[in-house]
C-alpha cells in the first residue's frame, strides 16, 4: 500500500460533473451527488451538466416510494445552492428529445445547446461522469 500525499494547498480547479443517467433504478446519480458535495466541501469551482437521461435527475415529482423504494434524494439538488454550487447546465437537445421544458425542473438551470455544452466541458480542469 502506497499512500500518496498530494500538494493541494490553495488549489482551486474547475470540476464538472457530467450526469447522463436517470436518477433512480441505478445508483450512479446518487453517487455522483455525493462526490459533488465533497468537491464543494473542498472549495472547488463546481458545475453540473445534465445530458441524455441525466436530465431526468432534476425533474419535478419523482416519487420512489410509489415504485422501487430507492432512497429519494431529489431534494438534494435544491440544497446545492447552499454549497455554492450554482452552475447547473442542461443540454437543450436532451431536454427537448424527452418532451421536457425548463418548467419541469426542480432547480434553476441554464439550458445550452450541445455545441455550447462541448465548449463548457472543454473549459473544465476535471470532468467526472456518472
Amino acid at each position: 500500500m502506497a499512500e500518496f500525499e498530494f500538494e493541494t494547498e490553495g488549489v482551486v480547479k474547475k470540476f464538472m460533473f457530467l450526469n447522463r443517467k436517470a436518477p433512480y433504478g441505478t445508483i450512479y446519480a446518487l453517487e455522483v451527488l455525493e462526490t459533488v458535495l465533497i468537491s464543494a466541501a473542498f472549495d472547488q469551482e463546481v458545475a453540473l451538466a445534465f445530458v441524455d437521461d441525466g436530465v431526468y435527475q432534476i425533474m419535478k415529482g419523482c416519487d420512489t416510494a410509489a415504485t422501487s423504494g430507492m432512497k429519494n434524494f431529489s431534494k438534494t439538488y435544491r440544497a446545492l445552492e447552499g454549497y455554492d454550487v450554482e452552475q447547473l447546465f442542461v443540454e437543450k437537445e436532451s431536454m427537448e428529445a424527452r418532451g421536457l421544458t425548463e418548467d419541469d425542473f426542480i432547480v434553476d438551470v441554464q439550458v445550452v445547446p450541445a455545441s455550447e455544452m462541448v465548449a463548457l466541458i472543454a473549459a473544465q480542469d476535471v470532468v467526472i461522469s456518472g
Partner: protein
Amino acid sequence: MNIGILVNEGPFTHQASDSAYMFAKAAIAKGHAVPRVFFYYDGVNNGNKLSEPQSDDRDLVKLWGRLADEHGVDLVVCVAAGLRRGIKDDVLAEGFRISGLGQLIEAGMGCDRLVTFGD
C-alpha cells in the same frame, strides 16, 4: 505528467477496469506517474480479494495489487460505495486501502490530468 485515474466499473461486466489497468501500465512505461487510482461505483469490486476468476482468465484484482507494489500506485476504494457493495477491510485485496471521496477530489486537484474509465 501526474495522471490520476478513476475506475467506475467492476472487472467483469464492463471493459473499464481492463482499459484503466492497461492505460496505467502504458502511462508508467512512457515515464508518466500514476500516483493514485480511485475506485468508485461498482469499481470497488476491483479490490475484492474473494474474487476468483478461472485459472485461464486474467485476475485484475491481483494485477492491480502488483501494479501498486511495483510502481507505488495508491489504490483507493471509496468507503461509502464499498460499504453498499460489501467491500470492507476484511475482504480488501493486497495493495488497496479504503478511504473517502476526498481522496478522489484531491487526486483531481493535485494531478495534471484525471482520467475516468466507465460510461
